[in-house]
């Protein structure tokens, strides 16, 4: 069982993703923006991060940039409404381990989490 940090400003999305991840048997902790999320990365040491892009306070690109600068080894899966090819390319270039669009398909999410956790 792993600990996943979910960073998204929408409670509706957090609730949906949290349900899917819990069904996989993992523990979920939640942050409502990137700033809070980065604090939780330090304090909670999650095994995987699920990250939104468009958020107030600090967006997902900034989170990815700061995580890369801190030599972060925690895999980050971006889950965003942004379907632009350039957004996907930018996230992968910034070190994201995977990219999926909202609303996420449960099987796709599970497959990516299983893959990055090496299960």
């Amino acid at each position, binding site marked *: 069982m792993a600990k996943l940090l979910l960073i998204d*400003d929408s409670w509706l999305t957090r609730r949906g993703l949290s349900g899917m991840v819990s069904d996989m048997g993992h523990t979920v902790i939640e942050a409502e923006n990137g700033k809070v999320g980065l604090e939780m990365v330090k304090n909670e040491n999650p095994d995987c991060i699920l990250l939104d892009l468009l958020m*107030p306070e600090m967006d997902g690109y900034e989170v990815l940039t700061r995580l890369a600068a801190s030599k972060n080894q925690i895999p980050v899966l971006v889950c965003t409404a942004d379907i632009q090819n350039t*957004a996907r390319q930018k996230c992968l270039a910034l070190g994201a381990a995977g990219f999926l669009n909202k609303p996420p398909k449960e099987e796709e999410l599970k497959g990516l989490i299983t893959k990055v956790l090496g299960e």
Partner: protein
Amino acid sequence: MMTIHSKPVSDRQIEALRELINIGVGKGAAILNTMLSSHIVLQVPQLTLMDMEDLAAEIAALGSEKLSMVALKFDGEFSGSAELMFPSETAMTLVDTLVGEAPLDMDVDSIRSGTLCEIGNVVLNGVMGSISNIFSSHFNYSVPEYIEDLSENIFLDRGVAPQTTILLAKTRFLIETLDVDGDIILFFESGALDRLMEMTEAI
């Protein structure tokens, strides 16, 4: 025939632009369909060149009812704003459908605005992202904004001068099983129009 900055725009150009917007709105509707598991009926987008005052009048003509709107501003090769708009009364049907059992620690207004904001975020990103991908371009987005007001007021205080020329693309949609209708509205600011037409021509 429309003119943009006194330059005539051909019917062929308008048709190309309409098709581009149709593809974007189709993607947005497909996403809404996935979220709600309900078929979405789309009308053909209407394209109109107008100023902000005309836009306010056009929206006011929808009726005196209260509207719920999510606005997503974008900028990149050209700038503008995309809106998803519902009558507030029927918007609640969408909220109820998606939320089901409401969280106990949240008030009704927060649940409504949070849910509609995320619906708007996902659908409007679908619309604009499709257009961006066709152009091999990139838009930067602002955090979506939820606005609820009477139709005559909903486009006030948008920070755009009343005389500003805009290209309005409006698509009406109907979610049949929920009996909910609404509009996807895109407006492109005047500085963007020439570039938009150039890029549409180049596809």
